[in-house]
């Protein structure tokens, strides 16, 4: 059904909301990647099957939603309107939930979230600390709607910002985005309004609006959740962008590994087209805008703006030098605006609620909210969105619940392969673009990886170098060869083959790459190295001079042994060892055989009595054991 005017849209929304209001209750089953991997699909099916028979009686509907964020406790189920959150729900719990809670009105304490310190059970999802400190803008509808249900999205406010925008002049829309202070959520944090204005002012009839859904940062999944969980928010932002800069074509570049994002976006585009929100004469305004999807080929460098555009042209994704601006000559050398998925998702909300509303959140120069995937050695792993300026401590301890197994905190990594590690001394750093950059890291696209004392910082730096060595496009020498040489030096470091002067050589090479590389991939590639050297130089020195890995991670430098006085023969290490290097019967002393041990540390992590310790390999050699 085509919606022909803003008035008809208001009518449509009203009826969609009225339809929702008739539902007595809703069962929201999180079907994000994390929950699906934990068996959420079976839970949703069980609800649908159980409720189908009694749907008329209880008027309750099952909805498969996008990622609720609290992946750690999945599969998650939220019951509306009460807002009860059940965690780790199994298909066999479903009948009890239907009988007791939906029909009987009583909660099931066993399934509620338990506050670890007080042991208190929390009923309402908004009271759970993980959610309490969050403010959701880009992810405002995720978890509340069924991403495949157009009316559901509309009833929850989708395209409200577009209706307002089309009632304004493009200049007024630009002003609103300017007031909001919105900056790019995909990396560098460039002013969105300024980018749009350059493109609007560029000469040319044909212009492009692009969405960067490549999400190459190997520890981030927020763009995926947005595209999967609320695809209409992305489309709405792009149409508004098109109106503001005078473009009629939009393309979403989606990472190859995100098939569900492609499916949900494709369906959303079709729904929007059928409703007249995409295509000719949108809502009777005379404005035309079309959107299509292009799937990436799986190359990290294609997240870079000019490489992405070459890839869209069907070419190899090699970046261009930056003196040509994409806003003048981008895709097919025509004026182009490229923004990140989250940036686009923010735009609709800004138009709906006003730029001043957005600017009221955040810090002086970083406005609004930011989405992160909070992962690694943290208790509450998940997807979060918070106002800029919250401190790392609040994020990791209040929302994240602290370090996994209460081990000591070592660092948090942000900004992916272009970012860096922030140490414990800076935990009270407010998170915004400027502060993270000052600390030697960067905002990046939203990965936030918590590391404990069992994380080796030399190994982390090497991990990113290896990633980038594989992903460098090879067009320019400082990046291609620099990464190769740097990785070789790190391979030596972690194997105990480092040579005197290596640290200084690494630093010199880093400077060369920063100065000489063509694109940001190469220029920023040394960042993980430089930041770990800045805060954890002693670990480098330990690897180089003493041939030791203080965290016990680098295998060539580490051995494990069982302390006979502590071992109670529980057999856990025996089961954990992948190579059968441990012998011992239950209730008897266990022994690690050094000739078979590959120093993976699985036994160390599995031992409940801390009877296993690691020590530098050379110490064992000195004792004549190996």
């Amino acid at each position, binding site marked *: 059904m085509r919606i022909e005017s803003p008035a008809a849209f208001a009518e449509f929304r009203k009826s969609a909301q009225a339809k929702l209001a008739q539902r007595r209750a809703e069962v929201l089953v999180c079907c994000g990647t994390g929950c699906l991997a934990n068996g959420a699909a079976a839970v949703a099916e069980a609800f649908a099957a159980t409720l189908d028979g009694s749907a008329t009686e209880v008027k309750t509907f099952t909805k498969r939603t996008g990622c609720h964020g609290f992946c750690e406790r*999945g599969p998650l189920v939220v019951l509306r309107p009460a807002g009860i959150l059940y965690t780790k729900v199994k298909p066999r719990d479903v009948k009890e939930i239907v009988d007791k809670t939906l029909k009987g009105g009583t909660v099931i304490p066993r399934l509620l979230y338990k506050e670890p310190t007080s042991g208190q059970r929390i009923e309402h999802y908004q009271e759970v600390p993980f959610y309490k400190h969050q403010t959701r803008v880009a992810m405002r509808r995720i978890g509340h709607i069924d991403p495949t249900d157009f009316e559901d999205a509309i009833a929850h406010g989708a395209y409200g910002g577009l209706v307002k925008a089309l009632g304004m002049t493009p200049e007024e829309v630009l002003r609103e985005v300017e007031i909001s202070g919105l900056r790019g959520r995909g990396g560098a944090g460039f002013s969105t309004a300024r980018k749009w204005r350059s493109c609007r002012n560029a000469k040319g009839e044909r212009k492009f609006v692009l969405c960067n859904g490549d999400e190459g940062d190997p520890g981030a999944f927020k763009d995926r959740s947005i595209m999967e969980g609320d695809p209409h928010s992305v489309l709405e932002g792009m149409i508004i962008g098109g109106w503001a800069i005078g473009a009629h074509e939009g393309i979403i570049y989606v990472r*190859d590994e995100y098939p569900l994002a492609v499916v949900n976006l494709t369906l959303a585009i079709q729904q929007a087209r059928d409703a007249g929100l995409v295509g000719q004469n949108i809502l009777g305004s005379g404005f035309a805008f079309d959107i299509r999807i292009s799937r990436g*080929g799986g190359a990290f460098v294609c997240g870079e703006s000019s490489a992405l555009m070459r890839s869209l042209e*069907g070419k190899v994704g090699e970046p261009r030098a930056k003196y040509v601006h994409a806003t003048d000559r981008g895709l097919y050398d025509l004026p182009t605006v490229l923004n990140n998925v989250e940036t686009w998702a923010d735009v609709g909300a800004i138009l709906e609620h006003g730029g001043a509303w957005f600017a009221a959140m955040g810090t002086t120069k970083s406005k609004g909210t930011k989405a992160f995937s909070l992962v690694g050695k943290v208790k509450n792993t998940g997807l979060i969105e918070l106002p800029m300026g919250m401190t790392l401590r609040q994020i990791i301890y209040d929302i994240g619940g602290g370090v996994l197994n209460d081990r000591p905190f070592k660092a948090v990594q942000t900004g992916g392969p272009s970012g860096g590690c922030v140490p414990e001394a800076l935990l009270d750093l407010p998170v915004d673009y400027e502060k993270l950059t000052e600390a030697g890291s960067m905002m990046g696209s939203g990965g936030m990886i918590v590391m404990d004392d069992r994380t080796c910082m030399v190994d982390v730096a090497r991990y990113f170098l290896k990633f980038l060595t594989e992903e460098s496009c090879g067009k320019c020498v400082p990046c291609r060869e620099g990464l190769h040489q740097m990785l070789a030096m790190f391979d030596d470091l972690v194997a105990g083959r480092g040579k005197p002067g290596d640290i200084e050589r690494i630093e010199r090479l880093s400077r060369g790459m920063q100065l000489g590389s063509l694109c940001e991939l190469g220029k920023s590639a040394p960042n993980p190295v430089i930041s770990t050297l800045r805060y954890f130089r002693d670990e480098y020195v330990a690897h180089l001079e003493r041939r030791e890995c203080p965290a016990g991670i680098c295998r060539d430098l580490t051995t494990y042994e069982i302390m006979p006085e502590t071992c109670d023969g529980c057999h856990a290490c025996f089961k954990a060892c992948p190579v059968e290097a441990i012998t011992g019967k239950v209730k008897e002393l266990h022994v690690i055989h050094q000739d078979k041990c590959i120093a993976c540390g699985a036994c160390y992590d599995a031992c409940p009595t801390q009877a296993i310790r690691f020590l530098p390999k050379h110490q064992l050699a000195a004792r004549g054991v190996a």
Partner: protein
Amino acid sequence: MSASCSVDLTPAEKVLERYPAEEASLIQVLQDVHRAYNYLPCEVLVRVAETLHVPLAKVFSVGTFYKAFSLTPQGRTIVKVCTGTACHIRGAVQLLDELCRQLNVEPGGTTPDLGFTVKTVNCVGACAMAPVLIVDETYYGNAAAAKVGKYLKGSGGKADAN
């Protein structure tokens, strides 16, 4: 190239019909062709080059640049280890090493009987259960090196390859 000229070109022709014959279609065409054959056979690349009027060298260049493409046949069962940052610091390396040891292949490699291909992926969005191992479509969270054999069993590719 002529040695294996037995490849049926019909699926490729079907894909090519759906796209305009121009360079901009190249990546999308290769993706669809890859899905149809499970890899990019040489003969098919030649046909793609002819049809889209793109030099063969360019087709090869694109086919080797992007990770989504393989020029050699893939295994019946694809085993992926997530090597994203969260999985890395929670033991993805140990997992991958053990998997490769048991199947006797390098990461990216395929067993000689075409039973398994081992791949690495970056963050699959299930960091809460890091490290993650995926056998075809089944996710194994908190995956342990000691359980690799168990994960492989029950998949179509025959687990006793070592």
